[in-house]
């Protein structure tokens, strides 16, 4: 089952670009967070693809992916808490409507 590595890299870069498109073009804060999750996942797939052909310590890629998943969970938690707080105060989570520096 030999997959040439540049096919995987092209796939992950397309996935990354899709996430980037979502992050840039969406108005809804939660939508942006969802797109960031896609970008994070694209990077994780890269790690795993490379970790297979590492001679010295093959498991380092996978460990890094585990840390990445855990940190994505932490960012998602804090990010969504902030979004909830904005929603509670501003009654809207559309990023272009949140322009007051203080509320």
């Amino acid at each position, binding site marked *: *089952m*030999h*997959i*040439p*590595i*540049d*096919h*995987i*890299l*092209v*796939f992950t*870069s*397309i*996935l*990354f*670009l*899709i996430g*980037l*498109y*979502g992050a*840039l*073009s*969406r108005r*809804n804060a*939660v*939508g942006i967070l969802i797109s960031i*999750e*896609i970008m994070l*996942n694209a990077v*994780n*797939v890269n790690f*795993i*693809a490379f*970790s*297979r*052909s*590492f*001679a010295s*310590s093959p*498991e380092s890629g*996978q*460990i890094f*992916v*585990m*840390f990445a998943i*855990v*940190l*994505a*969970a*932490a960012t*998602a*938690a*804090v990010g*969504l*808490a*902030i*979004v*909830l707080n904005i*929603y509670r105060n501003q009654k809207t989570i559309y990023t*272009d409507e949140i322009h007051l520096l203080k509320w």
Partner: protein
Amino acid sequence: MTLFQFLATTAFYAAMLGILIAAALCVTVRNLFHSAVFLAFTLIGIAMLYFFLQAEFIAAMQILLYVGAIMTLIVFAVMLTSRMGNPAVPQSFKNKKIVFLPLGLVGFILISAILKTPWETSEPQTAVNAVTLGKALMNQYVFPFEVVSLVLLVALIGAIVIARSE
């Protein structure tokens, strides 16, 4: 190239295609809940990719942590912030066509760089199972392991403090 290699590679490319479609849908669909569900499909697709790349433990962790935990967070956020579903409001910026310019640029540079460099495709190592991962976590990476648990604790308390209603 036995039949199974052929089946496996076609399944791999099919999974890749499926993930791209699900991700594209997730980013473009108007109803936020549908985009959360499509995100779940992309995550499960990526877990399938990990199975193909012999990273079984990471695939199980991905499903357990991402689809089990983070998706629940996102779905709760979607539920709490949307006024019971009124997708009438436009979900994306008016001049979203402009976004394609930087995207195209970045994409062109990235993909051309990928295709030009000669990746030395060495024979993939033996599969890394949970035992070697555990050993590495406990010996070589024990410091980052502790720091990450600290970060999680901080994120936990931070999220509760921010989201707590007075």
